[in-house]
């Protein structure tokens, strides 16, 4: 029982890193960034190659995944989303562009690197720690600790810095924030940078847990469910939703059936959308005309 909660916290942390990125972009631009998964996958591969080719240091790999993720995220924002945002086209075209980007990314990886699973070299001791009746893998401790630190830093940026203030203002109304002297283009880039950095971080953790493979980015679906569960656009909601989903999933795998785990996650999504579409902490909002 306690064991499942520990496992759930570990995977929930990874979901939280990705879910925050979704919610952040959504809160500003009101659309779902479907290219988010590519950044996660890229982060996992960057970390893998750093560990195997450059130097087998976890800290360096972590840095590579985060910087790489952030840069990739900015790149596609400028190349694909920016022209669409300037045109002010329908939001759905942004979704389509995002799906296109993720299709490109996934298949480029299959073509250039191959579709095989890439297992990370052992960087953490395999021997789990025994805390009372619970066995905790060192990896899981690392994941939870680093994720919490990253989320804390992120929270501080949002709540204490000028940039954070600008982000909060823009989340209310991007155009008005722009009129008040916020450089909204730079702000959007900053938001994609933060989302990409956190996604890269999630990528390396997923890589450590499940190896790196081209479809790894599909994990962001879970993060999306978390973000919706917590209330899309609400950052604390995204984190709460992610941990709740992580724990729910480990419980379903442990006590019901591991192959039905994803069915339950999607069921949760449908139920949330049906009965509380604004999520746990979101603001109820109708479609604006």
């Amino acid at each position, binding site marked *: 029982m306690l064991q499942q909660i520990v496992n759930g916290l570990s995977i929930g942390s990874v979901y939280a890193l990705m879910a925050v990125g979704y919610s952040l972009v959504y809160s500003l631009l009101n659309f779902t960034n479907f290219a988010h998964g590519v950044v996660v996958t890229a982060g996992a591969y960057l970390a893998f190659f750093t560990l195997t080719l450059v130097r087998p240091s976890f800290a360096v790999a972590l840095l590579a995944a985060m910087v790489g993720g952030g840069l990739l995220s900015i790149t596609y924002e400028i190349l*694909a989303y920016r022209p669409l945002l300037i045109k002010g086209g329908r939001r759905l075209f942004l979704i389509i562009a995002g799906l*296109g980007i993720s*299709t*490109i990314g996934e298949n480029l990886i*299959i073509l250039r690197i191959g579709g095989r699973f890439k297992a990370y070299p052992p960087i953490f001791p395999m021997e789990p720690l025994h805390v009372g009746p619970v066995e905790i893998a060192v990896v899981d401790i690392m994941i939870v600790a680093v994720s919490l630190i990253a989320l804390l830093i992120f929270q501080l940026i949002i709540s204490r810095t000028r940039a954070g203030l600008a982000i909060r203002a823009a989340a209310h109304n991007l155009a008005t924030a722009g009129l008040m002297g916020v450089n909204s283009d730079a702000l959007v880039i900053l938001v994609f940078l933060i989302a990409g950095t956190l996604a890269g971080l999630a990528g390396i953790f997923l890589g450590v847990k499940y190896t790196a493979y081209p479809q790894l980015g599909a994990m962001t679906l879970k993060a999306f*469910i978390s973000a919706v569960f917590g209330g899309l656009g609400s950052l604390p909601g995204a984190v709460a939703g992610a941990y709740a989903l992580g724990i729910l999933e480990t419980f379903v795998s442990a006590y019901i059936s591991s192959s039905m785990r994803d069915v339950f996650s999607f069921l949760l999504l449908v139920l949330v959308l049906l009965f509380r579409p604004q999520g746990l902490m979101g603001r109820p909002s109708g*479609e604006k005309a």
Partner: protein
Amino acid sequence: MEYWTGVLVISGINLIAILGVALFTGFTGLFSFGHGGFMAIGAYASALFAIRAGVPVPLGWAMGAVLAGAVSVLIGYPALRLRGDYFVIATLGFGETIRLLVENSHKLTGGARGLPDIPPGVNIWVVLVLDLMAIIALRNFIGSRHGRNCVAVREEETAAETVGIDTTRYKTIALAISAGLAGLSGALMASWIRYLHPSMFGLNKSTEITIAVILGGQGTLTGAVLAAMLLIPLPEVLRMAQEWRLVAYGLIVVLISVLRPEGLFGYREITFEGFRRLCRRPPSPPSGPVLNGEEASP
């Protein structure tokens, strides 16, 4: 020759699903990434009816299509009340759930080992006739009051609602038609390939269908037909470039959404009417095919 007939059959079968999604997306403005799931329902239902219950093959197709349409109404009831993004996610989740359910019901569907020995019954003529019937039926639907209401929902949902159009109802109708066609397409696929595997109808299939619709353009059946005839045989024609196909798909989608969001044929149709007008007024400068249809006013 037989090989190319096969390519044509596959394209024709996919076209049925693409036409359905073209109606749904093009005339309601909603995107779906779950129509692979409806294809799976049609495919497995028709195959299982035929294998387990000995239902005649064409009746099995019809039952598969109806079942897919019925499921879509059930799904659509909650999902269509959602905003655009949420709806996309809901369909994504739906498609994946169907795939997982098929994969995990070993006894019924053969699970990940696949379902072999499906009775045959598809040939090129069946597919062509069904394609033609689908096009004519959809054209009539779009021209009807219901179809025009769908367009109204796409263009200005709030305005449509204020003049008394039950928007959710028309979205549901469009979804049910498109899911039924996807189910029919899946059923035909089952009878043609005579083997089913859950991976045939995964997210890739749903994406392929939607990409074809985006490429063809919104609110046009002509575009859907052209896109289907262009995209589906493409990997067969460009064998050596096969691996790059999906990268190219992605690139096409990004370029289209950035440069020409309305797609190749957005909001226009090639009609006989148009050709007749072309013949009547020869001095007008030749400007490609004469196009006819509602004016685009996005």
